[in-house]
């Protein structure tokens, strides 16, 4: 079909080449349907929620510096860890890479002008903010002390506070997740540039696709669960109440049917980012592309079948427990495939230790520790000893923080020149990455030991013999805080003072590096044509690839 816009390319109109940042009014931001601007809106929003949730974590760590409960009352402590969990899971980790980096990069990676449904994309941000504001409102007006899991019957019969407001907030934010996932799936299927076949897609696209499938299929179950929870709390009749013929274990099944796949929502996009980083900074093709791509899908599929490993001590049938345990071991296989393939990609690569690569290497190590300790917990007998202890806390923080947060930071640094057109200060960036890594390990490694020794989670006081490791952990968290704070300052600094960059400062492959930095409003004046596989870095390391490698060709030429 010969549309006018394609023929008009030879002298592109200045309108088309204007950067997406060129409009400055508040209205132009709040009513934008540009996926890049919505990505920025998400970035600012999740940083706000991260700051609040991190403050709660700091209070928790401060409380735990001494064995007695002296800083926070028991109830306040419960509210703090609930606040920390709810905000970090639903308002930071789940939207972090998909809604910020995915929103920004995915359409450009696909050679598309926008996501398939731009207005739904904006709606998803408004839903997210509505949900977030309700959650904050719930915190200010009494708080919630149930933990982020809202287990019944505590949450329905006994808990004071704003359980229903908080649940409504999460319910609404859930619809924002669904819309984002729906948009990503439709975009990946329908808006790929000519020549961009499924097996030429960057792995980041594969992992966002797998994530979106989980978002779309798991989140509605959480929505209906929270609805039932609220109805039960209001109506006083319900299916999760054992005294009325229901069963609290049913709540746990439905909750983990969502929340275990949600764990993969929180790690799969990180794996995608790390694949981009590892190939770019070792100047190599990805080792075993098909396996890494397939592993993303396998993790998404198996991720739906392992929820019962959260319930080994819940009176679930031991036979179900055995199956869930086996399946949990199986899900480790695709995860390990990824780790081995990243390592094999590094082998004989020409490795540059730039800031994003430092985060990526940190990710690989910490994700491996987090994954292997996950297998301890998936073992039926060992889990009885470790469940509800700090071992669990340490395990999932190795995945969530050591994995997802490091990948998010790595990706943010990697694409920062693309997003802003400016480079961050490299030396400070490296320093922040190292400080984060050290602070993280000092915070969470002692918690493995604490958990193994038997310190339970979710108590504000503990026996005196656990104090040493708790002091280590609190000290580490302050270093971690410095590691998080540094990028905030130098990123803001770089907005004005950073050196300007060209389209492809890293000499990386991928369509996002063929368009200007920052990209024009509709990304490409002419939709590119893709002629080669992903990660076509010359082997062995030679001169960097050309910026465009024929991608500017008009497909109708």
């Amino acid at each position: 079909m010969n549309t006018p816009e394609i023929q008009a390319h030879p002298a592109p109109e200045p309108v088309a080449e204007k950067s997406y940042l060129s409009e400055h009014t508040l209205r132009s931001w709040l009513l934008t349907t540009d996926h890049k601007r919505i990505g920025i809106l998400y970035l600012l929003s999740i940083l706000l929620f991260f700051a609040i949730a991190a403050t709660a974590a700091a209070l928790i760590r401060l409380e735990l510096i001494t064995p007695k409960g002296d800083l926070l009352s028991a109830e306040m402590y419960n509210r703090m860890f609930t606040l920390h969990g709810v905000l970090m899971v639903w308002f930071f980790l789940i939207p972090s890479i998909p809604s910020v980096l995915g929103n920004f990069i995915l359409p450009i990676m696909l050679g598309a002008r926008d996501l398939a449904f731009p207005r739904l994309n904006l709606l998803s941000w408004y839903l997210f903010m509505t949900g977030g504001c309700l959650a904050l409102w719930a915190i200010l007006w009494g708080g919630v002390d149930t933990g982020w899991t809202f287990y019944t019957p505590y949450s329905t019969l006994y808990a004071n506070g704003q359980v229903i407001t908080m649940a409504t907030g999460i319910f609404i934010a859930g619809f924002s997740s669904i819309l984002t996932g729906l948009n990503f799936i439709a975009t990946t299927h329908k808006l790929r540039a000519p020549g961009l076949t499924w097996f030429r897609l960057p792995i980041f696209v594969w992992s966002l696709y797998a994530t979106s499938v989980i978002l779309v299929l798991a989140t509605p179950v959480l929505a209906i669960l929270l609805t039932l929870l609220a109805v039960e709390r209001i109506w006083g009749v319900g299916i999760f109440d054992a005294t009325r013929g229901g069963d609290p274990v049913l709540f746990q099944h439905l909750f983990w049917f969502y929340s275990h796949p949600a764990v993969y929502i929180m790690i799969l996009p990180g794996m995608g980012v790390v694949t981009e980083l590892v190939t770019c900074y070792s100047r190599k093709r990805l080792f075993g592309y098909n396996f890494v791509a397939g592993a993303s899908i396998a993790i998404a599929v198996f991720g739906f079948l392992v929820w019962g490993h959260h319930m080994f001590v819940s009176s679930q049938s031991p036979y179900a427990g055995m199956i869930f345990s086996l399946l949990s071991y199986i899900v480790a296989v695709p995860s390990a495939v990824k780790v081995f393939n990243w390592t094999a990609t590094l082998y004989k690569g020409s490795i540059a230790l730039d800031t994003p690569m430092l985060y990526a290497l940190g990710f690989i190590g910490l994700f491996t520790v987090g994954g292997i300790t996950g297998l301890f917990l998936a073992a039926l007998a060992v889990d009885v000893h470790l469940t509800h202890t700090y071992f669990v806390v340490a395990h999932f923080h190795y995945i969530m923080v050591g994995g997802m947060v490091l990948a998010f930071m790595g990706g943010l640094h990697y694409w920062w020149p693309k997003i802003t057109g400016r480079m961050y200060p490299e030396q400070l960036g490296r320093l922040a990455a190292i400080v984060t890594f050290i602070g993280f390990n000092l915070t969470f490694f002692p918690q493995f030991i604490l958990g193994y020794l038997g310190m339970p989670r979710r108590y504000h006081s503990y026996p005196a013999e656990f104090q040493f490791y708790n002091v280590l952990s609190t000290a580490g968290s302050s270093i971690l805080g410095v590691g998080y704070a540094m990028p905030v300052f130098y990123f803001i600094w770089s907005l004005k003072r950073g050196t300007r960059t060209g389209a492809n400062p890293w000499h990386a492959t991928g369509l996002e590096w063929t368009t200007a930095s920052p990209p024009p409003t509709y990304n490409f004046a002419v939709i590119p044509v893709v002629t080669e596989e992903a990660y076509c870095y010359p082997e062995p390391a030679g001169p960097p690839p050309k910026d465009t490698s024929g991608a500017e060709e008009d497909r109708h030429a």
Partner: protein
Amino acid sequence: MLKPKYSRAMHSPYEKHFESAEQQRDTAVFGMWIFLGTEVLFFGGLFMAYTFLRWASPVTVEVGSRHLELPLGCINTAILLTSSFILTMGIQFSENGRPRLAASLLAVTAVMGIAFLCIKGTEYLHVIHEGLLPGPAFRIDRVMSPDSLRAGMIGALGQKANLEPQNVVPTVAELFFWLYFVMTGLHALHLLIGIVLCLVIAVLLRRPGGVSRNAVHNTGLYWHFVDLVWIFLFPLLYLAGHW
């Protein structure tokens, strides 16, 4: 020349980020199917709860089921199935250049949806009047009455016999009616959205600018989905006690 971004003008055949009108239509319909996938999982949680209940005490669910208004449920099923047929005809006519006839058929569909909701409301009143609204006013004696326990179908063997009261678990009975209200209530809410969609499309079809083909198509998909949910709800709730 580049088109102005996101022109809402009727003559603009497709939005700026698509390459052709066909791509836009494909994408819109594809997106609707994904949305319906999420809806399946949304109702899935309720079906899981129902399964749990039926597992906990099959007899109780069957006894409870016999307190629902089967004739009204049958009429509603017929109405909904017919409405899907009429809607399909409407969509065909809109694709074949008969927008005014299509608009009328969509309006008929919406009216049938409203009729369904009215009958549903009558049913709710019946059940509430019988004292079977879960909560403090729930009258378990109604479920336990000899009349209610007469000639029940017991277990997998399917022998007809009068039930003993001790075979019925009162708490499960209350939960059955609770689930009845939640499931059919959520379905009714979806139907209400469908009615609004049908009316909006019907009005737009009568306008000179018309309405995009995929909007009509997606409304149809949504309506059929709501219909399909009912096809599962009807046997699980109404027929459970009559097999």
